């Protein structure tokens, strides 16, 4: 499905069980992917995260942790840093914020997805993976309402089913896929 899909922005959210799921998903991304990739993984707020250095060698793209007002660049995967929300400021720029945690999480997925939808509209592809939280549901709704696409990991396939199940119930989805299927689709992105 969706062979040759060309999103303008790819956003991914994951929580419990997310490290290994992200490792697989990001490894599936083609080196020539023509859009920036932004990721929120729920991480503890009180210590540095090593997720970017951990995953950098496992993908064809450059993996980094966000800084405020960093340019959005193709060829990169940018993770939200611990204790900051990461948002899309405009078509070329990221922003960070210390606004209230969402469902006890900072970073949280909703602010990323909602801001991506506000700026990129139908150009957004959002993927929500495993997690034991309902963060991401509002974000998926915003993405879909703005005409973007949302793929959810099939709750039965997810290490923690609550996050994709909650989003499915709240907002529906453009596709509900196993992680294997998500990886196959990601390989086809341009």
């Amino acid at each position, binding site marked *: 499905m969706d062979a040759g899909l060309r999103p303008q922005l790819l956003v991914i959210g994951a929580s419990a069980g997310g490290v290994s799921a992200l490792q697989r998903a990001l490894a599936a991304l083609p080196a020539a992917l023509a859009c920036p990739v932004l990721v929120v993984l729920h991480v503890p707020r009180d210590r540095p995260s090593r997720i970017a250095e951990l995953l950098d060698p496992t993908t064809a793209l450059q993996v980094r942790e966000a800084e405020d*007002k960093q340019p959005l660049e193709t060829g990169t995967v940018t993770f939200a840093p611990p204790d900051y929300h990461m948002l899309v400021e405009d078509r070329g720029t990221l922003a960070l914020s210390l606004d209230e945690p969402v469902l006890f999480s900072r970073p949280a997925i909703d602010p990323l997805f909602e801001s991506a939808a*506000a700026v990129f509209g139908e150009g957004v592809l959002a993927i929500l993976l495993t997690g034991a939280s309902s963060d991401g549901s509002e974000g998926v709704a915003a993405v879909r309402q*703005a005409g973007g696409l949302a793929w959810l990991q099939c709750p039965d396939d997810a290490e923690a089913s609550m996050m994709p199940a909650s989003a499915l119930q709240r907002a529906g989805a453009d596709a509900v896929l196993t992680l294997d299927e998500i990886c196959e689709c990601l390989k086809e992105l341009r």
Partner: protein
Amino acid sequence: MNEQELFDLELKLLVDAIYQRYHYDFRNYAVSSLRRRMQQAMQRYDCPRLSDLQHRLLHEPELFTQAMQFFTVQVSEMFRDPSYFLALRQHAVPVLKTYPSIKVWVAGCSTGEEVWSLAILLHEEGLLDRSIIYATDINPAALAAAESGTYGIDRIASFSRNYLQAGGQRSLSDYYVTGYDGAAFDRSLRRNVVFADHSLATDTVFSEVHLVSCRNVLIYFNRPLQDRAVGLFREALVHRGFLGLGSKESLQFGEHGNAFEITAREQRLYRKAA
């Protein structure tokens, strides 16, 4: 025009209206987080549309005062990012010690946690008596809280932990007394602190300073306003003065990047280039 474009139009009108009505300038605040906070304000004040909120804010000054919290974010803790304060002790204090009098500017001081932290640090380094700390913010309620130096007891444990990690030489409890209202910090620490209303968006430089600490303020500004603010710091700082930013803030994407050199990369401590 779709819903999103309409909302963004209303947002632009709202910040313009507030500027004209109250002279608070949020026109160059980062729009991504402002959108979210305005949605929260709409919920809080039961306004279905942003223009409904605008109507109320224009006609009810006391509501605007209350709603300031939705425009400016008040998140701080004492000795937040302890390694920043360690870096100050290590790199900035030896230089500050060479001056007969020292001026420090805490820009966007919010409820003052950082002001009191710096006062304690300067006190322990034997510098507080010959220092002036300018603590500025646009939010009068935040400034009043900063000046009172009273914080909830529930926050003290993390403040104490940070203090020790930040190279604190005593026990944080030496600096406060607890009462009904919480932990009140020692008034003598604020002898040389000047709390003042100042806007990085509309005001100019008011003094020459040796250190500017402005952490997690610039993240709420768009790039042109960031450039304005950093331009003020550049102008205010003495030759080779220090600038400290929040842990995910950077000078590298702005127009003043070349005017500063990095003193401690991870801790975001910069020094005005020679």
